[in-house]
């Protein structure tokens, strides 16, 4: 491929997918490392430009996943992710509105889950991947993906049920249901 053609193609790829790779990187490694992850992923994409699949997003996210796992010290990654997760749970005061409170409760419950659960849930809910693509990124078969996602959903529901903020809306709903 001619260099200038490759650059144009790469620029298009970058403009289209950088936000999605960034979002995945933030959710897996926190903002402090996300920029570097994005850079590494697209450097890899540049070098494999001729071989990228027609829908490159799963490839880009798999690369991001592997970069996160191999390029950073575990402590740095954990600290960055911990900072991110703590922000998810504390960005807004919990008593502003029930809707906000519930959103915070969901994020706190998500933050309390094992990393593998968090990834499966967010691949679908936040990153918009189809089950096949999500399974590809998670490194498992589609069937396994559904089983693991089901379990992750159950654990998220249990974590949410244990959250003080989440009880209020649910309890209110239950009280309303009991009213004649």
């Amino acid at each position: 491929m001619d260099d200038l053609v490759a650059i144009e193609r790469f620029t298009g790829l970058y403009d289209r997918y950088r936000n999605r790779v960034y979002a995945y990187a933030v959710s897996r490694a926190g903002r402090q490392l996300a920029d570097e992850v994005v850079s590494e992923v697209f450097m890899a994409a540049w070098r494999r430009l001729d071989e990228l699949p027609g829908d490159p997003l799963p490839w880009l996210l798999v690369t991001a996943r592997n970069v996160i796992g191999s390029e950073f010290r575990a402590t740095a990654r954990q600290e960055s992710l911990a900072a991110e997760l703590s922000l998810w749970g504390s960005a807004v005061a919990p008593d502003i509105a029930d809707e906000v409170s519930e959103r915070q409760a969901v994020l706190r419950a998500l933050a309390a889950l094992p990393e593998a659960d968090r990834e499966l849930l967010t691949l679908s809910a936040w990153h918009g991947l189809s089950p096949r693509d999500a399974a590809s990124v998670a490194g498992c078969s589609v069937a396994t993906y559904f089983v693991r996602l089901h379990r992750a959903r159950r654990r998220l529901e249990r974590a949410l049920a244990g959250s003080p903020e989440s009880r209020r809306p649910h309890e209110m709903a239950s009280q309303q249901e009991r009213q004649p």
Partner: protein
Amino acid sequence: MDIMDLLTQARPGSLDPGPETDRRASDLAKAIATPRAGMTAQPGASLGGRWASPSARVIATGISVAALAGIAGVVVALSATGTPATRPHPPAARAGTAVATPGALRNAILTAFNGVGGDIFYAEITEIYPGTMSRWNGIQQNWSYPIQPQAGQRVHVRSVLVPSNPSDKSDTEYIYTEPSGAKAALPTNTEIIFVQYGNRTWSDTTALVATQTPAASLQELRESIATGDFTAARKTELNGQTVLELTAHYKDAGKESEQTVWVDPATYLPVQTLSDGGGIKIQVDYGFLPPTPANMAELKATIPPGFTRTATIQKGP
């Protein structure tokens, strides 16, 4: 409501990058211009060395981490747009004279690097991109002191971005205490003064920043020289100055690039480097300054008369 719907609605805004990403894109393109030998791109493989602009990385990291530290919601437009502000490129090498063996020259350069650890490092980076990436064209002026800080030592960094569009010009000063080795890669408390020419404002703040000084590019150059990337050497002239020229060729995934470094034969310190690949040219002019009061003054951001102080870093115009 289904738990997955709740989760979808709870998606945090922090997953979306701010406009400063354009600046990072410039770093990325720079990395593309200089593929490194031995780099692989299989998912999961270590990608090895990097050639991103340290100054831009400092700024980009500073802003994002500053946001993390409590000024979330405000962003800084750091994108460089417009036509390139070109600098004269090194003249074509004249019929050169062979000099000492690359090995001997390499050792002399590495020895010279060791002798300037207490100096002020200056690097002026000129970036020229083809096609649609030309919006990243521009010049960065970077100063850092000391070049090789010791743990506990105060580090001063200044970075001036001079894109063709005057409204995008910025001047940033960072001061922090060099962390100990184990914490070198982690964010550290940093005093930041940020001057934006577009809206004629300046701000000062303290934020957690994972720092990498502009002098890190010198370390990368040192590593390239130490690992023998530069194999050809000859004497030539650069802007009227006699210099030694070393060239490295890289080929990765069928794409070729070249990096040339011109070295002062008296000091064996780099005068200029030019990376050229895929139509992207990155030129760096180097300076090594003794820490005199006059030179130290260059490390301070300049706040022009009439600029308004703002409480936090403000969004650009």
